[in-house]
């Protein structure tokens, strides 16, 4: 542990290190008081919730209308048979990945900067997957038959087609939702116990007691908790790679020009982490400001995450360039025509939004000054969110609109129903998130307490805890 005597934070924190400090956080009481004070509802919070519910209402209306009328009310334009819904599905699945990466992978790698942001990121993961999971159902023509994709025993002995990537998706998404929810919940147990102890309402106290499994803060409990947490982290880690790989198979297994490529799994995973971190910023940066958490999520934390974003941006950018290279190198005319059309033809604007937001603007993170500028990071995060949505747009729409058969080439313009459901998905996601931050601690109390020096040792400058 670095010197606590220095009031200034180190300028260049090592993100791969567990060695991280919160100089302005000095006591356990401070942690409990500051973080649990967030749980008090405010007018602004009610306003935000109302806005989220309004967006959700728009989405719900759009969906009901669509179910009644048929998918024709959306902007589908054959052969563009997949549109905003699949784009938004992939977008939200991708968002989810950062949470698991932060909470599980970085945990295993002992990257200390994860501590104060992982809870929010993990909640984000669960809600993002809950959002994403809706979209395949919204997207299909007969949503009431959705369960046919699930392998359930039936007297007709009809099973789903296990060759179809869409069936793999069902497994990937349900697994991911199960694991990430479990992981979030297990991590919450000690913190729920804190809430229980401070709760005066007997009913709530009882509920929190049940949720905390009667946590009594014993050594034995902590040992089991740590092993369980580690185990779940190890369990979740492969999902970071596998889930988005499976999602990418939806495209890579098709013989559509622009889809049929082996680079998709790593490319999608990098993109997912990239977009997920952007969404973490979108959420965390306003939170640290509004809830007065700047001394928990310090500039060092942001700096460290910015480096990860820069890395994934470079990975994604490389994937973009390799796609162009392979299209040229592969010599398949359909691919070449498609990529030309994507960048310089019909869809140039979408492709350049993607390239600008995902490849060019993140290059600014080479500057430490900008890495440590929360305002810029927040603005950048919005650009990245937009850019990553457009990345999926560029993959889905231009490929389908410019397939092998020229006679069927077409265009695609979403309608208000598409936009309604896109907006509704944000309403759905933020509704859950807003409810979450007023019910459960948005930062892991127990883990933060681990990194502040215990009071009885405060005279010593060195030594762990």
């Amino acid at each position, binding site marked *: 542990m670095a010197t606590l005597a220095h009031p200034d934070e180190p300028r260049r924190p090592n993100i791969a290190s567990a060695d991280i400090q919160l100089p302005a956080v000095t006591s356990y009481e401070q942690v409990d008081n500051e973080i649990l004070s967030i749980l008090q509802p405010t007018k602004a919070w009610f306003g935000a919730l109302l806005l989220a519910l309004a967006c959700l209402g728009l989405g719900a209306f759009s969906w009901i*209308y669509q179910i009644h*009328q*048929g*998918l*024709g*009310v959306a*902007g*589908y*334009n*054959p*052969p563009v*048979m*997949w549109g905003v819904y699949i784009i938004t599905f992939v977008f939200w699945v991708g968002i989810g990945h950062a949470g698991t990466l932060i909470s599980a992978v970085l945990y295993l790698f002992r990257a200390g900067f994860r501590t104060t942001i992982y809870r929010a990121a993990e909640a984000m993961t669960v809600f993002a997957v809950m959002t994403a999971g809706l979209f*395949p159902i919204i*997207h*299909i*023509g*007969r949503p009431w*038959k*959705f369960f*046919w*994709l699930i392998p359930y025993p039936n007297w007709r002995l*009809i099973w*789903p*087609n296990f*060759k*179809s*990537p*869409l*069936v793999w998706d*069902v497994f990937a998404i349900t697994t991911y939702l199960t694991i990430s929810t479990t992981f979030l919940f297990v991590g919450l147990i000690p913190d729920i116990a804190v809430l229980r102890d401070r709760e005066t309402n007997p009913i709530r106290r009882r509920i929190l007691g049940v949720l905390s499994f009667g946590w009594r803060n014993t050594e034995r409990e902590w040992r089991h908790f740590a092993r369980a947490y580690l185990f779940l982290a190890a369990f979740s880690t492969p999902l970071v790679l596998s889930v988005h790989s499976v999602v990418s198979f*939806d495209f890579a*297994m*098709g*013989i*559509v020009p622009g889809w049929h490529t082996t680079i998709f799994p790593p490319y999608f995973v990098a993109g997912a982490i990239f977009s997920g971190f952007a969404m973490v910023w979108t959420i965390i940066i306003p939170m640290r400001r509004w809830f007065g958490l700047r001394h928990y999520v310090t500039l060092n934390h942001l700096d460290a995450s910015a480096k990860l974003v820069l890395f994934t941006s470079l990975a994604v950018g490389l994937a973009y360039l390799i796609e162009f290279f392979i299209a040229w190198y592969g010599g398949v*005319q*359909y691919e070449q*025509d498609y990529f030309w059309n994507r960048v310089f033809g019909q869809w140039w604007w979408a492709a350049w939004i993607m390239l600008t937001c995902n490849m060019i603007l993140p290059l600014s993170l080479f500057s430490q000054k900008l890495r440590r500028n929360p305002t810029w990071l927040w603005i950048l995060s919005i650009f990245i969110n937009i850019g990553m949505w457009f990345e999926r747009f560029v993959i889905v729409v231009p490929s*389908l609109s410019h*397939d*092998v*058969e*020229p*006679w*069927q*080439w*077409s265009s695609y*313009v979403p*309608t*208000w*129903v598409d936009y309604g459901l896109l907006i509704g998905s944000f309403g759905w996601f933020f509704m859950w998130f807003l409810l979450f931050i007023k019910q459960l601690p948005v930062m892991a109390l127990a883990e933060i307490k681990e990194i502040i020096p215990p009071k009885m040792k405060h005279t010593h400058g060195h030594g762990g805890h």
Partner: protein
Amino acid sequence: MTDTTTQGVKRRDFLKVLGVGGAAATATGCSTGDVEKLIPYLVSPDQTVPGVSNYYASTCRECAAGCGIIVEVRDGRAIKVEGNPDHPVNQGALCARGQSSLQGLYNPDRYRQPMKREGDALVPTTWDDAIGILAGKLAEVRAAGTGSRAVVINQHEQGSFPVFLDGILGDYGIAPHLSYDAEAPLAVAAANRAAYGAAWPAIDFSAASLIVSFGADFLDGWGLSVPQQLAFAEARGKVEGAPRFIYVGARRSLTGLNADQWIPVRPGSELAVVNAIAGKGAIAAAAEAAGVGAGLLEGLAQEIRTARASALLAGGYGPEAGAVASAVAELNKSRGNVGKTIKPQDGYLAFEGVAGHAEIRAAAARMAAGEVPLLIVRHANPAYTSAPGVGFAAAMDKVPFKVSFSSVPDETTSKCDLVLPDHHALEAWGDAEPVRGTLSLQQPVMDPVFDSRATGDVLLAVAKRGGDYRSYVAGRVGGNAALKDAMPKAMARGSVATRSASRASATPAGAGAAQDGAFFLMTYPSPSLGDGRGANKPWLQELPDPVTKICWQTVVEMHPEALKALGVEDGEIVTVTTSAGTLTAPVFGYIGLRPDTVAVALGRGHVGAGRYADAGENAWQLLATVEDRAGAAALAGTKANVAKAEGRQRIVTTEGSGRQHGRGIAQAIALPALLSGEAGHGHHTFEGQASTEFLPGLRSPTANDAQGDMGVPNSKDKGQYDPDHWSGAARRRWAMTIDLAKCTGCSACVTACYAENNIPTVGGAWQGPQILPDRTGFGANITRSREMAWIRLERYWEIDREPKDVVFDPEHPDFETRFIPMMCQHCGNAPCEPVCPVYATYHAPNGLNVQVYNRCVGTRYCSNNCPYKVRYYNWFGYGDPSRTQYAFPEPLHWQLNPDVTVRQKGIMEKCTFCVQRIKEAEHRAALEQRASVGEDGVRIDGLRPDEFTTACAQACPSRAIVFGDAADDQWSVAQWVKDRRAYHVFEELNTYTAVVYLQKVNHPAPTASATA
């Protein structure tokens, strides 16, 4: 139906009783007014078996040609119209218009009972009342002695009815009627009659080595399109020794697109060109007048001089069409073509006794002058199909009493005082004499849909003559017994009585005063809607124009160069102004048009002629009163100005990109290259492709088909063709060949597929989203490519740039066009199958790629993965009667094929290779005890080779489509797939398709170098 004449109890009453029972089985049957009528007969005629079709031969009345048809009737309802294979005119083929007669029969906008005028509105009345009124009026006319001044206009039809009509009305002193046909090529018919002694000689294209068409659009519905197309396609299908074809005309019609060379002469210069070729003028001067390079005309003259046997055809719609036709006929005579390629002795009688536009104009003038006491129209719609200068509608106001026998509302009938709706041709008796000496009979195939009556019967009742029109027709063939004998084939020897052509003739209006305008205006009858008579049939509205691929919309066609000069792009609104009127419509750049010419199709933009007919604009409004020397309206005799107007509309087109981008979809080969064997087998190979064994009869590698070893060359595993395959050996590999040398792009197959497979039309203005739709109007769904045609005709330009950048070069104006019908290819290794999460699409052992509608959840992944993009999705509840988007409003749904599911919203559908026909044939074989069990225990279906075929192949007037079992050499398709021109589309994708195309064959000019 010969023997369903009378029934003791009215059928509809029975249905209501039946409906009470039926209601229990239906969700909607809560009231007897809304019952599902499951089986129309409670007590059925002897030969009607529920679920088994009866077939009745009859005669098509959709145009003047008089093709023979066979109507499939299931449980008392006509469900499909096909060509009669024994008929001398169409030999089993049928065009889109003929097949759509069903939608005239079941048209939801038909008059349901007689109507009479009360004030401004037509109100329903009874037949007794209506007949009484008509009898009274006719008696008045007779008493006043004004009958000779009455005007009677009948839609031109062949047969005995015109004589019958004249006979009955003659008793009232009424002059012979006008038999009007706005699309009849009267000038050419008259010139032919003068030159050859036959108005419409048969053309033996096979005997010709060169075909030159001077604006004769013989594949566009001009003349008798089906026999012309049959003969043309047969000739072109010969490949070696097939005639070369040159088209001379300002606009490249469908006929023009089928030509090997296009010489775009300026409208009005045709006569000079023909004369120069005949040596009666200088080529250079003619080329100057025609606005094309002199080399083109010299080459043309040279080819005509040296051709072994040529067929020169005159056509066109200019004011000089008659003179051109005479000149061409002289040329044919001098080249010795008459009797060789032009065969007057085998002529058709379609255009005998047709009244022209001039006669309608003369009648309108008399009407306007108040001389006409009575106007009677039947099916003809002169208020729409005449130049605005005629003022027919206004003239009608001066006629004290107007009677219509039309069965559907239109511009003329809606101004009448009494409507006595005639039966549809499929409900009525009649006859025709399409070729000399053969009577083609027309019989009712089902009970009338509505409370209509045959005009013949009404007139007999009015005249109190007794009997019915059926007896009259029977009299033509020699009595009732003879009629009964003749009906199975609906043909008899005999002739109809010819009319005494004693009607007052009218002087055609010449070009008259010089017209101003920067452009020549060419209007032309739409290949699908004709002069406008097909406009209320959604199949025809939705059928993309074979040339422009536009449906539900009227566009102003201009050359892209002219568009640039005007500063507009495709879809921008322009106003066309002529001396007669204006038309405002989106502009469309068409490369097959001279830059100094604009073209607009006729047929759309009706007012009050039904819910579908409102689509588009009415180009008749543009026509100045100019007539050719035979009195027909000169559709290309007006000059026009074009100005940019405000706004823009989406073009309602089914075309994505009109170019192949080098992808080898529609392949062609020049004849010399084919003969020299250069690119003979047409096998599209790529570097590194493994050689594969082929299933006998089909270029589908056995080892790679169905569940065999995918992609392993020379594998012993024969997949489902292995006799020991666990699922039972596949005995059949259903396959199809399409000969692009024969296919003209006419699109009759598309309509056949709509009729057979219950495909919904989606272009209605009401068939889109109901809340805040972002696209409205007719064809809104199609602007999002949501048409449902399981088979589509792709039309590719072979040009090196986008059509909008094409520049017109008078020296080298030519470009090649290729048509290719595209439907589900029934791949042996289908990309759609593995991606479906619920097995809604899978591979059947007989090679079919099967779509299970009930299992489909609508992920649409199959469509994404289909390289051919032949899967179609139900975006709305087109099949749900409770929906606004319902595609079959009562009684159009009576046409639905009961063997085919009406698909619900949210599911995918596609071509099934008419699996219901395969099953029907198998069942028939089983019933006839032809099926058996083979030694290996596998069932043998016992089908006879070529026993049945798909709807598209059946209808094809080019005979380009052959369907059958490619695994059995006795089927013709098994021979066709071995053709040296055979190829698969996108073979490099390893889809192993069951559809094999035969390359189109180009016939370059004898001197020109061969290019593929």
